């Protein structure tokens, strides 16, 4: 599946055509032209139509060009698994950041990535994650004064522990 360049181009062209259609239809509600000045709907409508047209041209060109084998879509057998784990981690980071606060979320994120994608040793993972999270905290929160989410840790300061 999707091993030939042609099949990939066909699929992508169709997807883009659908996107163009969505924009086109969506823009109708925004109106067309008002008093000689283009209204909010004109640009996206024209844009959507152009998009559909171009995608159709692309589709036509690729059908004419014929099949040619392309490289493997997923280069390794475990690529889909690694990718899904990665995406899951990224998404979870976004969700967790507001609840758990920066330090904890980053810590968990790093540990997870180091263990789940291409597993490293526990010791190395923990030390690396902890030090990177701490360093990042100092860099961003303290030095650059970025306002990072605080989460359930409250205003956790390392030196409060002592």
């Amino acid at each position, binding site marked *: 599946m999707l091993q030939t360049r042609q099949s990939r181009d066909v699929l992508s062209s169709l997807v883009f055509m659908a996107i163009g259609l969505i924009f086109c239809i969506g823009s109708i509600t925004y109106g067309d032209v008002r008093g000689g*000045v*283009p209204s*909010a709907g004109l640009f996206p409508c024209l844009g959507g139509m152009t998009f559909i047209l171009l995608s159709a041209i692309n589709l036509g060109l690729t059908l004419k060009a014929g099949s040619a084998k392309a490289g493997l879509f997923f280069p390794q057998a475990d690529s889909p698994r690694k990718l899904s784990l*990665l995406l899951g981690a*990224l998404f979870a980071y976004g969700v967790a*950041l507001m609840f758990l606060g920066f330090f904890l979320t980053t810590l968990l*994120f790093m540990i997870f990535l180091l263990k789940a994608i*291409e597993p490293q040793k526990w010791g190395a993972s923990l030390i690396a*994650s902890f030090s990177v999270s701490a360093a990042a905290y100092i860099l961003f929160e303290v030095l650059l004064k970025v306002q990072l989410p605080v989460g359930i840790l409250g205003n956790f300061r390392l030196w409060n522990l002592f």
Partner: protein
Amino acid sequence: MEIVNHLLLSFQIALDSGNLFWCFMGCLLGTLVGVLPGLGPLASMSLLLPISFKLSPVHSIIMLAGIYYGAAYGGSTTSILLNIPGEACSMITCLDGYQMAKKGRAGAALGISAIGSFIGGTFGVILITVLAPPLAGIAVKFGPPEYVSLMVLGLTFVTYLSSGSMVKALMMTVFGLLLGCIGTDLVTGSIRFTMGLTGLSEGLDLVPVVMGLFGISEVMLNIEEKMLEREVFHTTLRGLIPNRQEFKDSAGPIARGSVMGFFLGVLPGGGAILASIVSYAMERKFSKHPERFGTGYIAGVAGPETANNAASQGAFIPLLSLGIPGNPVIALLMGALIIHGVTPGPLLMETHPNLFWGVVGSMYTGNVMLVFLNLPLISIWVKLLRVPYVLLFPVILMLCLVGAYSINNNILDVFIMVFFGVVGYLMKKFEYPAAPVVLALILGPMLEKSLGQSLMMSNGSFRIFLTRPIPLTMLGITFLLLVSPLLLRLWKRRRPGLLLEGQED
């Protein structure tokens, strides 16, 4: 000789130890901010503004300005090494810079980037010293119709940004234009395509999209390979400095980038991104080896990097001569000035010569400091890359995630970045170029707004574009550029034996 007096005054003030110190602090912070993806000079300057209240006006402006152009230097670092633009304007540097790094010439790319930035920046300062008032006059001449023609010209450069199929490049341009429609229509005020998310009501923020399309997607692609066997880049010692040939190839782009970048920077709303895009497109179009672009050709790094630094300097002109900020970062600087009791305006040069020439002088010293800061750092960056990718990629991702969040303190930007990471990954797999999307995302809304304004000015008539000199000229150039490949082919057909470097179809 007015100018000599001015220059002497600038240096006298700039070389004062207090000013040197704050200039250095600003440059250091700026470099750091520029290197970290997502974190931009705007965010850090506005957070450091309260600190600057405690300093004298000259010191605080010098420091804040240092952050501003320091960021322009630092932004190319991650672009070259990781394909993640540190600043939105460094996106173009990714195209050839990252390829150069893959070929083991990361040091050379970083080096020429620093050198080009220095030349561009210094050139810019010289022009400011000499030409500030007349240049300001030009800036004012650009109204909505002029911007429309500029945007249209800019959009035609899209075709020069990608190496593959023209149709796909055009498709991606339109895709970017459609993405640009998300948000509030600037002319009528209606909110479009936001699907109820208020975070999208101002449109897609450029930085998360760029970071996603270029950076996150790159990490995703790398993850797919067996990482344990992967060393990021092999860089020999020879790879640390540009060789003779590379210097020769860069000379022209640097020269052209300086001039063109500066003038584009003077125009309010023009800016560093546009400058780097135009430089790349121009170099490619007029190069003897257009096919080398995109594979790691140093001209593709030298030109844009010089241009965006020259543009950063150019943006000071409307501020210093008219009191009008050309972009949000300069606007912040202006705010800082005003709070310190110095209102920029046409009289600034006369009422506060010390401040004016002090700032200009610190631009010279700032550029020098930055080139000496950045060059030694190159070997450090290169060493950092020896860290195994398995350990490196979580750090990279984390920096991107924090960077995305820090733009607006809005978690939505993080999700946008991840979303476009997936989009970028798919686009790479299906062989669609990403750069045109970004270009169109920038230019599209500006074009739509300026078009609306122009038509309101002309009461609905399109003749306004033909009756004014600047739009007429620009549209003429655009037309010629579009038609030239056709003309070339016609010419080729008439003279079949002639070998010409034509455009791809």
